[in-house]
Structure formats: C-alpha cells, structure tokens
C-alpha cells in the first residue's frame, strides 16, 4: 500500500498550478502583460521547486499527495522522490534562465498585442507546468494527459515563425508524438485490465512476469522512445529543434525530450523493476549506442550551427539509454547498477544545462551575424567572447571532459560498463566523446579564427543575455564539482538501490 499523504505535499500541487495559472492569466490579460506575469511566476516557481527539493532532502523520504483526498487506486496521487525533486529543480532553474534570455526576443510592445510574444510566454509557462506534472505524476493516465499537454505546448513553439520548413517540422513532430501517445495509452489499458489500477506504486506491487505486463511495457517504452527521439525514431528532432527560435530550442532540447526518458526510467526501474530482461535492456542500450555514433557523425557534417547542435542532441539522448543494460537485471542494487543509473540521470541533467546554453549561444551568434553557417563564423570569438566561451563550456560537458557534469555522468557509465564486464559500452562512450570533441572543436576553431576583415554585425548583443547563457553553461560545469554525497538525493525513494553505492 502507498503511504499516506505527507506534509508539504501541497507544494506538489503548487508546482503544477502556478505556471498553468500564469499561462491562463497571460491569455486573459493579453500580450502586454504576458511577459511580466511570466517573470513574476518564475522566481515563485523556483522557490516552490527548491522547497520540494529541500523537504525531500531533509526528511530523506518521498513527498506524497492524494488529490481530492481520494487515495489510489480510485484517486490520483502525486509523488516526488529524489529523482523527481532533482528534475523539478533543474526544470525551474532552466526555465528561469531561458525566460530571462528570451526577454529581448519576445519583449512585448506597449500598445497592441502581438502574436509571437503572447504565444511564446503562454507556451513556456505551460511547458513548465506540464513538465512538473510529468515529474510528480504517479498515475499512468494522469501522466498521459500531462504528456499531451507537454506536446501541445511544445509543437507550436517549433513553428512560431510560420515558415514552411518549421511548419513541416512541427507537423512531423506532432505526428510522431501522437504515434507515441497511442502506444503508451495502449500499454496503460493493458495494465489496467490485468491489475485494476494505474497507480505506479500499486502496480509495482501487483505486477508479475506475464504476457500482459510484457506487452504493456514494450508498447509504452516504444511510444515513449518515439517522443524521446531515440534512434531510429529521431527523424523529427533535428528540423524541429533547429528550426525553433533559440529560446524554444533550448526548452525543447534541454527539457522536453527528457520527460519521456524520465517516464521510461520510472517504468523500468520503479514500476517493473524485476520484469525487464537483460536481453531487452541490451537492445535499448544498442539503440542508444547507434544514436551516439550516428548522431555525432551526422553532426560533424552539418553546415549550419543549429542543426549541428540538434544532431548532437540525438547523440546525447543515446547516452541516456546506455544506463539500461548496465542498471537493469541481473543484479539491481549492485554498486555498478547504481552507478549506471546515477550516471544516466546525471547525464540528463547536465545535458539539459549544456544544451540549453549552446542553443542560446547559437541564437545570439545567429542574431549578431544574421546567419548561422559554420563556415562563416570566423571572428565571432572576438566580438562575442562570452558567448563563444559559454558554448565551449557546454561542449566540455558533451565531450565528457573534466570538469563538467557530463564528465561525471560519462565516467560513471564508463566505470559501470567496465565493472559489469560489458566493455562494449565503454568503447561507445569513449568514441562518442571523441566525436563530440570533433564537432565542438570545429565550431570553436572557426569562431576563434581570424576573420581577416572586421565582421559586419547586423545587431549588437547586450552583455546581459550573454551572461545568462554563460551562467547556464557554468551550471553544467558546476555539476562536475558537486561532491558525490548530494547524489544520494537521487536515490531517495528507490527501494532497490543500495544507497552510497556510487562512492
């Protein structure tokens, strides 16, 4: 049985209500206020997120809330364990950074309402609320609604400029996402039919190794993979993430694709910890490895900066799935299994910061130059030193070089692979790092090259925006300095894992 609701559980409700209420208020008050509302909601939301994290950290227990006082299976529960709390704080910090950055681009005129700014702020706030709903959701159908909310907020962000290419990208994204939702829903109904509940905690106690459970986990995982753009279901991602306005790209690449990944982790490790077979996990890892190699190779051949970063996202998503063959059976709770799990989650977080910073840096460069052709970047390092530096810091994390969050994450995956005797994953991690080094170096070397003649900028970039980008990139780096003890936060509420196994 799930425990009772815990004190402070109302914070979970606030984490959803605040951003969504902000979005509705923006719609009603109109464009002139949308930006101000968003900028008011953001610090409040960060306070809520940090409070959730602090409570989970201090009490060393999960935060739980039964909506309407109806306990599962009849009602719907919200639940925040260490992993949820970490994701919520990550999302809050990133959304704030992106919001501050986007002010210059989506600032609102005082007299008439304009389409793009109004829509952008509403969508940004809703993405945030939907992400929080995914991170604390505990009921498979409630999570379906949250995922759809996330999709409907994310898709229009892609086509905000209304060009034919971005419209095509948005439509393709939507179709992939709908395909994914249908498979997910099909899995959910099979579970309900077999076990009479959709609550994850109850399900984890009832589930047995039988055909219905097998079919459900395969269908749901496949659906979520389409939404997470894991190779070979990645086709929609590069045009969508590269075509969106840069703050939107940062949200999409940094946060939105992490939501379906988060749910796969939940399903595999929390709902059905004893179910997945090693062989199936190897397949997932294999797809991850293919994504790393393919994404990185294609990124190397890109002509445009934003597309390069988007293909790098395809590759970095691959790393997330390397944790499955290493952390799933045969021995959950084994030190290497915990290391792999933690490494995978840390990769999700550090990539979120690094990739958001890199997309926004690319946005600034494109704004200054009027284009984002990699061949034409020479001299940018001189005019936008902070931006290029931030891009390089983000790149550090992608390559997995110290000091960075990416380094710790990849080192953990590497250690786990070696310890588990599955050396082939270690080869993939190292190769992926080298290839990432290649495409990041390509950009940095270009930017630092001598232009020969002074660059003609079409607009100047305020230092404030560059600093925001730098701060996000620094967050990715700082994750590498976090002592390992706080990583125990991630383990709170996870029955199967040996706490301290990461040491």
């Amino acid at each position, binding site marked *: 049985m799930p425990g009772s609701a815990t004190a402070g559980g109302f914070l979970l409700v606030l984490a959803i209500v605040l951003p*969504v209420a902000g979005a509705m208020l923006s719609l009603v008050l109109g464009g002139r206020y949308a930006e101000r509302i968003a900028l008011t909601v953001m610090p409040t939301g960060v306070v809520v997120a940090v409070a959730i994290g602090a409570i989970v950290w201090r009490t060393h227990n999960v935060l739980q809330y039964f*909506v309407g*006082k109806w306990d599962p299976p009849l009602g719907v529960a919200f639940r925040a364990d260490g992993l949820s709390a970490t994701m919520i704080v990550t999302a809050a910090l990133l959304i704030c950074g992106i919001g501050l950055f986007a002010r210059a681009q989506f600032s609102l005129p005082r007299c008439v309402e304009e*389409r793009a700014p109004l829509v952008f702020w509403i969508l940004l706030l809703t993405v945030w609320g939907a992400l929080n709903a995914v991170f604390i959701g505990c009921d498979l159908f409630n999570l379906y609604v949250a995922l759809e*909310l996330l999709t409907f907020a994310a898709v229009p962000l892609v086509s905000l400029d209304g060009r034919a290419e971005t419209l095509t990208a948005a439509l393709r994204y939507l179709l992939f996402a709908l395909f994914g939702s249908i498979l997910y829903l099909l899995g959910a109904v099979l579970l309900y039919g077999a076990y009479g509940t959709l609550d994850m905690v109850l399900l984890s106690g009832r589930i047995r190794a039988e055909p*219905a459970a097998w*079919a459900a986990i395969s269908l749901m995982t496949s659906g979520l993979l389409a939404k997470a753009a894991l190779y070979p279901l990645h086709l929609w991602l590069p045009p969508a993430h590269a075509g969106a306005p840069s703050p939107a790209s940062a949200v999409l690449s940094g946060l939105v694709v992490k939501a379906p990944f988060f749910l796969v982790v939940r399903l595999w490790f929390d709902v059905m910890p004893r179910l997945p077979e090693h062989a199936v996990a190897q397949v997932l890892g294999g797809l991850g490895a293919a994504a790393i190699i393919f994404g990185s190779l294609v990124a190397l051949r890109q002509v445009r900066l934003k597309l390069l970063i988007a293909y790098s996202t395809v590759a970095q998503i691959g790393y997330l799935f390397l944790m499955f063959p290493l952390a799933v059976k045969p021995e959950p709770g084994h030190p290497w299994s915990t290391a792999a799990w933690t490494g995978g989650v840390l990769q999700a977080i550090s990539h979120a910061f690094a990739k958001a910073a890199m997309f926004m840096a690319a946005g600034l460069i494109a704004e200054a130059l009027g284009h984002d052709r990699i061949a034409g970047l020479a001299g940018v390092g001189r005019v936008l030193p902070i931006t290029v530096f931030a891009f390089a810091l983000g790149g550090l994390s992608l390559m997995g070089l110290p000091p960075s969050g990416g380094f710790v994450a990849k080192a953990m995956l590497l250690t786990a692979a070696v310890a588990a005797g599955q050396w082939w994953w270690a080869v993939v991690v190292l190769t992926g790092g080298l290839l990432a080094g290649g495409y990041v170096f390509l950009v940095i070397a270009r930017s630092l090259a001598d232009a020969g003649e002074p660059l003609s900028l079409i607009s100047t970039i305020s230092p404030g925006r560059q600093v925001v980008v730098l701060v996000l990139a620094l967050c990715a780096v700082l994750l590498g300095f976090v002592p390992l003890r706080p990583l125990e936060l991630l383990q709170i509420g996870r029955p199967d894992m040996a706490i301290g196994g990461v040491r």
Partner: protein
Amino acid sequence: MAFDIGLVTLVLGVAAWTIGARETFAAVVGFVAYGLLLALVWVRLAAPDVAMTEAALGSGLTGGLLLGASTRLARTDGPAAIEKPSAIMRLAAAVLCTLVSAGLAALVLLMLEPAPTLAPRAMANIAATGLSNPVTAVLMAYRAIDTLLETVVLLLALVGVWSLARDRVWGGLPGPYHRADPHGLLTFTAQILVPIGILIGIYIFWVGSVAPGGEFQGATVLAAMWIIASMAGLVDAPPVTRRWLRLALIAGPALFFAIGLAGFAIAGGFLAYPESHAKLLILMIEVPVTLSIATTLALLVAGPPERAPAR
C-alpha cells in the same frame, strides 16, 4: 450475439474502407460512419456516457473538422506526386501491424473474466460526491485532476491553433467568412435547429449528475450549434483579442482551479469537496467548464484568425 457479430463486421469493414479508400474525402466520410458505429458499440458495452461523447465529439465534431480540411486541401497535387512507400516497406509494415493485432487479440483472449474493477469502490464512495452518475463522479471527484488538466489541454490546443495565424491578421476573426442568405434553407434550418440544440445541450449537461450525459457531451452539442449558426452566417466569431472571449475561454479552468484551491481551506485538500456541499461545488465548476469547453471546441473547429481586424 448475432447483432454484435454483425456490428463488429460493419465496424471492421468501414475501418478498412477508411484506411484503404483512394480519395481522402471518401475516407473521411467512412470515418464519420465508423464513429457512429462505435457509438453503437459503446451502447452495447453498457457505456452510454461514452457513446454520447463518441457520437458527438469523436464522430461529429472530429468528422466535421476533417471534412473541412479535406475539401480545403483538395487542390493539392494528386496521389501521383506523392511518393508511395515501396512494396517491401508496405509488406514489412503489414507484417508488423498484423503481429500487433495478433498479440493484442491473444491478450484479449487471456484477459481475466471478471476483470479487476474499481466499480465497487466508485459506488461505495459516491454518496460523498452528491452525484448518482458514477462516470461523472469519476470525472468530477475521484479523478478531477485529469479533467482539470484536460480543460487546460484544450485551451493550449487553441493557443497552438491561434499561433498559426499570420502576423498581419492577428487580432482578426477566426475562420472563413460565411455570407448569410436570409431566405436560404440553411438559414431557415439554423434558425429552427439552433435554439432546440442549445436546449438539448444544456439538458445533456444538466442531467449528467444523475444520468448519462455531462459537461463534455453538452458542450459538444453547444459548440455544434454555434458552428451551424456560423455556417448559416447568423453569427460570426469575435476577434481573438476580445477580452470577453478570452474570459469565456479560461472561466472554466480558472474556476476549477479556484474551487480546487479553496478545497485546501474548506475540505483539507486540493480538489476535495466538503461532503455537505459537494454537489453544489461540482455544479459551480461544471457550469463555467461547459461554457469554456463549448467555446474552445467551436473555436478549434473555426481555426486560426484569417480575416484582418476591422480597424
């Protein structure tokens, strides 16, 4: 049972037609029929609430939307211009989908009978909600958070649709213009049908607390009436920047949130209702929610602003 077998055959036949039809328009017509047949299936499965939603929303409004789209996109280049997937691809997909079907069929045959159910729990607690239709009790009490998020989903879909307007028509009127013909038959029909339809919509919503029906079904009927009236040119959509329109759109979710939050104070939890006032509070939520859903559905069908605002 003979009736059920006949119905299943029809449903499958129409579904195959919808997937296989050469013309998109024909496929859409097939889809509308498919929806109506599914509504019958829902009646056979003892789910009249779902049957009404399927007929009104799944078949009616979705069908209308797709019909409109198929005629609008009719001038697109013919099938010849579009690359057909190769025969091998088609074969692979066919094998894959057959496997999915076969697997699902096997699972259906393996399903427990009787299946695990929440019906006894839903009935045991229904007194606390003041409702007597268990489906409405699930939607408005036990799983009210789903319904609340769903109203937000609809709103967001509308923001998404509006975001597809061209910049110069922002603030303009949604959808194409329909000129009224005061002596036309459509105008005549609309004048008779719309008042009756509004009455029926309100009735379906009202009866939802005790009998099949509810806010989604009622709101869909109301939205359909607005669409008919606008097709006849009797009403026109307001400019999307109108404050009252925006208020009508968010009234439902906003009140839902407000009463949910008030639950912290009066019933000790988000979206909890004190037993003595549960029915009243649920009604207070349902009225604006019906209004907001109806407005949102109608505007979703109308599409993004297309006509520049009169300045």
